[in-house]
């Protein structure tokens, strides 16, 4: 079974496993985290053909032939993605376990809606949970990122 992840093709073992398991266990892409296992927290957010999906709720077999982007695929030529930089600039994390998920959701949001209002950001990101409660700074980071992206 071949998966396209972050622009390269990876041969992975057949079998019914979640995309999250395959990314972490087979491909060593551990930036994607499991938080709740039921699609609620967004720590396992990855982009599948540009759309945010919960890695814990989708089987690897379902995404064969699709383009998968994880947090590891965001940097270009050793340069942080502007959203990553905005998260640093606005101190938009504490324990940061949720951060890759938030960053990927933000990437998808800004792709769909380059100029989101604060309400639209809240709505779009409301499925990503941050237990440390860094939400205010995350909002600021998204607003800052959209000026840059």
């Amino acid at each position: 079974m071949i998966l396209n992840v972050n622009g390269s093709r990876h041969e992975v073992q057949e079998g019914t496993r979640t995309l999250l398991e395959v990314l972490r266990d087979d491909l060593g892409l551990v930036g994607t985290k499991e938080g709740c296992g039921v699609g609620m927290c967004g720590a396992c957010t990855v982009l599948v053909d540009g759309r945010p999906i919960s890695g814990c709720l989708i089987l690897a077999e379902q995404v064969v032939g699709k383009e998968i982007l994880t947090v590891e695929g965001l940097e270009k030529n050793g340069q942080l993605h502007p959203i990553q930089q905005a998260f640093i600039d606005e101190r938009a994390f504490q324990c940061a376990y949720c951060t890759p998920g938030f960053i990927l959701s933000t990437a998808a949001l800004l792709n769909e809606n380059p100029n989101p209002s604060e309400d639209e950001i809240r709505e779009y990101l409301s499925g990503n949970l941050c237990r440390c409660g860094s939400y205010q700074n995350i909002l600021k980071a998204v607003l800052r990122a959209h000026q840059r992206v």
Partner: protein
Amino acid sequence: MNPIKFLEPTDFSEASSLLDQYTDDAKIIAGGVSITLMLQQKLISPSVLISLGRVSNYDFIRHDQDGLHIGALTKLRDIERSDIVKKFCPALAHTFSVVGNVRVRNQATIGGNLSAADYAADPPSMLAALNARVQVQGPEKKREISLGKFFLGFYTTALESNEILTEVVIPNLSSSARAAYHKYTSISAEGRPCVAVGAVADFDADGKCLDLRIAVGAAVETPQRLNSAEAMARGQILTDELVAAIAEEYSLRLDPLTDVRGSAWYRKEMIRVFVKRALQEVRNDR
């Protein structure tokens, strides 16, 4: 443990034949949200998964003289964002926009959502109020089921064990009809609905209600409509008193359940409030 066979038929009739062949050992996987959840929690252990991922041409949204047609494999997110749906019935687009979170909506399909028959879901009550029907494919024949007869109980539908939902059809609304969907979350804004109310009303030129359909979901096992309450509106102006009386009828007659999102007592109260609010919205929107 034996590996699960992952089959990818290319059309519904093949999928249905496979389902017929493997019976209880097989599960259909469309978007995969509920099946993956159950697999993860080890509540099911099928030997075969029949994926609809290779079935093409069923992620459509189209409008014709019969009404709005939505292919079973259409993602909730695409319905929510569809200009056709927004034009056809803004409340319907809204209903899909409040399901779970954006990730779930990107993955879940309308067919899967309805077939899972989760009581704490959003689309069923709005679709029931819209008199939607579903087309299903068996190994030999297709048939149509009205949504009012589709949900039989918790996680249980009128689908035979070898049938698959292929399309949802929502009859045309008259240009004077208005619809509203009210989702009430009682705990976190992110939660599933405590009460869900879909309402559709049609009015004549004088503002008299020609037809009213209200389906209450999430608080009850399956979406519930009350003919007695709907009939109260026919030929009447929806005054505050009448709205209150209809809301009261729903509150009185339905027998809600208790779960973490609210007790039966509270849900009775919320049914009254949200039937009222949905009715006010359709009335005021006119």
